[in-house]
């Protein structure tokens, strides 16, 4: 048992931060995101005997996270309020504010598009790995990513133009 615990701590625990980062963008609430990651890690520990050593533990954990989010997280899920583009305030061009602005725009995307961007662009999974995590065909991941990038670019563009104009 101790050996199994050590193994879990060694290979699964380092991914808590990544899981929490994604959970926060899914649930849009720090407290519920922590609950979701905690539930994920408890489920992972319970099912750790099913994990095949040598396979991708990170993808396995993210799959559990998204399954837990879908199965248990309906009450945790929050749909961020959509803010009309023209009513958003433009940010000054500092790194911190730009980051906040991008995070806000990301939160406004649909859940599927947001998840695809988080997995592939932020967390660095390949499209094939993301397809496995989400249990969808790779083409679906690619189309979600395409739409997500297009939407992101569209929503960020007015601000960029405004900054350029000023």
């Amino acid at each position, binding site marked *: *048992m101790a050996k199994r*615990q050590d193994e*879990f*701590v060694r290979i699964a*625990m380092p991914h*808590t*931060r990544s899981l*929490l*980062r994604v959970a*926060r*963008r899914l649930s849009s609430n720090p407290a519920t995101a*922590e609950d979701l*990651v*905690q539930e994920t*890690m*408890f*489920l992972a*520990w*319970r*099912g750790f*005997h*099913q994990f095949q050593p040598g396979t991708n533990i990170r993808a396995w954990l993210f799959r*559990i996270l998204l*399954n837990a989010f*879908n*199965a248990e997280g309906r009450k945790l899920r929050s749909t961020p309020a959509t803010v009309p583009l023209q009513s958003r305030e433009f940010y000054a061009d500092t790194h911190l504010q*730009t*980051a*906040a602005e*991008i*995070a806000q725009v*990301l939160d406004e995307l649909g859940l599927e598009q947001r998840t695809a*961007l*988080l997995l*592939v*662009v*932020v967390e660095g999974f*390949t*499209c*094939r790995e993301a397809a*496995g995590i989400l*249990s969808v065909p790779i083409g679906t991941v*690619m189309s979600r*990513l*395409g739409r997500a*990038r297009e939407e*992101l*670019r569209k929503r*960020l563009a007015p601000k960029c133009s405004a900054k350029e104009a000023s």
Partner: protein
Amino acid sequence: MTCKEAVALLTLYLNQELDSARCVEMDAHLHACPSCAHELQQQQELDTRLRTAILDEPLDTHALDQRIRQHVSAGTPWRWISAAAGVAAALVVFWIVFARWTPPVYAEAAEDHRREVVEQQTRHWTFENTAMDAMALGQSVSPVGIHAPETAGYRLQRLKLCRLNGSIYLHLVYSDGPQQFSLFLKHGDREPAAEPIDAGRHGAEHLAAFRTSALTAVVVSGQSGAAALRLAQIAARAL
């Protein structure tokens, strides 16, 4: 390669997921086409901005890590052991008391098992793990839970949806080698108090059923009552 094809493959190109032949084609196209090269550059810039914005956010996982470590170091939680002991005790009582009892849902479960597993009448089953997990999730049942009996030597073979007494259930078929078992699961849509395992018989089929606040479960075995009970105990612990 056309511009349309190139744009469609940009994501795979950026992720280095293209095969070498496609990659060479893509390189050549990007070299010759300023428009697609610009598109690639814009996509890279957007990805970098997004990645930096999210990765730079401050995150404190200290308390969360502590809770997880405590949970893991506790090994098998006592609440599981006590729950399992309670289930086992109730099991014995109900095994003795419910020799003749067969409510409609259990009778229909036994019939389904006989037709679809014993007689192997043609049905549309799902065999692939990912698809089975998705179907379980679709019924709000934990995918980890449905695989849990595998650790006790029950291999999850296939799954389908069925209707028992007017409600949709997952029908999972496990095998311990010589024998196949049916496990019918329905997500609980209300919150009754957890009920202990009932055991009984319908025709040639042996049944063991339990209900928690999360779900209703019925195990059917043609082998023996004890075999059905054993799988029900495992399912009660895992689900």
